[in-house]
């Protein structure tokens, strides 16, 4: 595997781990006052948050991260049901 492919594979794996962490810890995030906010997760930690998605993306960029590989999710209030 080339170093570029290896790096991509690592980015995808880390993204998946952070995504799993988000869904498993959304109750904890609600307790920490992230309800109604977007949270950016890297290495199972919130690295940026806010009510404006674009501001969160900019904060992620300001930390030297490429947001294309960072989990950014919205913390819905408990009990919210979304039908897609």
């Amino acid at each position, binding site marked *: 595997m080339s170093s570029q492919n290896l790096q991509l594979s690592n980015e995808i794996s880390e*993204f998946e781990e952070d995504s799993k962490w988000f*869904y498993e810890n959304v109750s904890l995030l609600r307790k920490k006052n992230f309800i109604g906010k977007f949270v950016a997760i890297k290495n199972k930690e919130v690295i940026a948050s806010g009510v404006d998605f674009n501001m969160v*993306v900019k904060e992620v960029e300001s930390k030297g991260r490429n947001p294309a590989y960072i989990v950014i999710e919205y913390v819905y209030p408990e009990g919210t049901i979304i039908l897609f």
Partner: protein
Amino acid sequence: MKIPVRVEFFAGGLRPIVTVYIKSEIPKIFGVVSAIIDTGSPTTILGGGDIQRMRISEIQLGKLVGEYKELNIGGAQIKTRILPEAELMISGKKFKILDIQIPVKLIKGTPPPTILGIDFLLQGKLSFFFDPNRKEAYLELEG
């Protein structure tokens, strides 16, 4: 060949979710997304937030094709155009998928997540198994 799918509790219920790497040459788009497999959706749509994360310039967005189409999804109202061709990679397996809906304007609401619809299953020649009782799901390639 079976491709594992996670089953996560999200926005009121259990959802089948996969991590997808998406790449397109024209327009230039790449990034990783968490996608919900939704057999109630006829089309695949890239999440509004996901598209913003990928920092796609106005020039690149101008390379999307087709008319502006208004969609209502998950309480949000969005306008979309078509990404004519993209490569999706799931668990190392690549799929070439045509005509993905791309949100170009959020009219109201919270941007919806990425959804893999029936068109993805058809084009990828995949069947989909989902058992919410056992929290088990997977995609299976034909043949």
